[in-house]
């Protein structure tokens, strides 16, 4: 009986998790508007000179967390074959490290921000479950293309699973590196490499 109650609780918490999540679901026709709001919000945070770097990133990650599917990103960067070889705890550990790596890499770039503007250029439905949102980052007179790739999950939410910067897919870049590492070294080694803080980070910044 104890066990059934446990299952029941699990089920409740799961379904609560899902319904709770769908409150914030991004609907297809609202992606552009929703992203524009988020971009504007993020830009305001980035421009706020009163905030420290870690305060900025904390605020920004609140926005990102609701639109990025880190778990899927981790899974894709590893490839489904490799992913399925791992047990649940390893999958979790990897996902967590991967999310941290992404965030750290983003934080390292905060100092580079000056007065760039991001504008939404185009929304293209690739197929039923994929949407590409093309944005332009403007710096002085230069324009850089950034594409946010959304997919529709089973709850009909649209979430980001990859970002394409000037034709370079973030997931593809990690995928290539992970595949390369795993041809020569065991998975444990990959986890270790993910845990390592950046060696090259200069101390002075």
């Amino acid at each position, binding site marked *: 009986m104890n066990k059934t109650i446990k299952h029941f609780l699990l*089920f409740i918490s799961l379904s609560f998790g899902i319904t709770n999540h769908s409150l914030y679901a991004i609907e297809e026709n609202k992606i552009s508007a929703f992203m524009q709001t988020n971009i504007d919000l993020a830009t305001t945070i980035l421009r706020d000179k009163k905030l420290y770097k870690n305060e900025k990133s904390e605020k920004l990650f609140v926005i990102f967390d609701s639109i990025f599917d880190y778990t899927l990103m981790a899974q894709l960067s590893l490839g489904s074959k490799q992913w399925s070889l791992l047990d649940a705890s390893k999958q979790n550990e990897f996902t967590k490290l991967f999310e941290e790596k992404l965030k750290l890499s983003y934080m390292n770039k905060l100092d580079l921000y000056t007065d760039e503007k991001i504008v939404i250029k185009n929304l293209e439905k690739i197929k039923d479950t994929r949407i590409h949102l093309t944005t332009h980052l403007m710096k002085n007179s230069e324009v850089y293309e950034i594409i946010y790739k959304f997919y529709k999950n089973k709850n009909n939410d649209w979430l980001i699973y990859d970002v394409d910067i000037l*034709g370079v*897919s973030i997931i*593809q870049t990690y995928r290539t590196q992970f595949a390369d590492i795993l041809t020569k070294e065991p998975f444990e080694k990959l986890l270790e490499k993910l845990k390592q803080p950046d060696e090259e980070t200069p101390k002075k910044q």
Partner: protein
Amino acid sequence: MRLFLAFIFSGILLFASEMTASSYANDDFDAEFNDTQNKELFDPLSSYNESMTTFNDSFYEYILKPTAEGYAFIVPQQARNGISNFFDNLLFPIRFANNLLQLKFFNVLEESERFMINSTMGILGFRDLADEELSIKAHDEDLGQTLGYYGIGSGFHIVLPFLGPSNVRDLVGLSGDMWLNPINYFEARHLNLLKNQEQALATTAFFTINETSLHVKEYTQLKKDAIKLYPFMRSLYESRRNKLIHE
């Protein structure tokens, strides 16, 4: 009680069906990423490439970067920008020829306008007046891109000493572009701006140091994202080149 159990059971089933749905979605995704870069990647030079990447990285960090930083300390940014513009203007033949070869006639026209305006009113190209005043931007195209434009595949990846990532197609392109490059010296070429090989080498070194001084932190910044440098650079280079070819 039975109803309660049934409720739980259906819940578990629902959960299970969700699990299968997620793995199905995943197969779908794999196709998206399993492109040329991942499908049994043909990289016959991988071990050479890997050591050359390390060599280039050290060369950059310990020789080129400090030199460029020292140079930047002496020469003000405005002058360095001017020098960069001057060389950029000089490299006009490469852009002109490759835009023409790709039948991008509007770009050919704009490139010619840029060359004429900047060489004259821009004082030998030291000022990029065409961009500043008329917003006519350069259209960077090289022979590697031209070959790609006509459907020639990249071939395997080759990391060149000093020059960095490349591949078979871009290497072929590079040799063609070198022929058009005014700051190189070829005895067999009728028109040479410089008198000999030594001058060409010195000019190229100067050009490289000046360019590096304007982008000194970029490579170091980029490299921070790498978990393993060689596959990182390879992936970045090949994706970027593909994008440039399709633009």
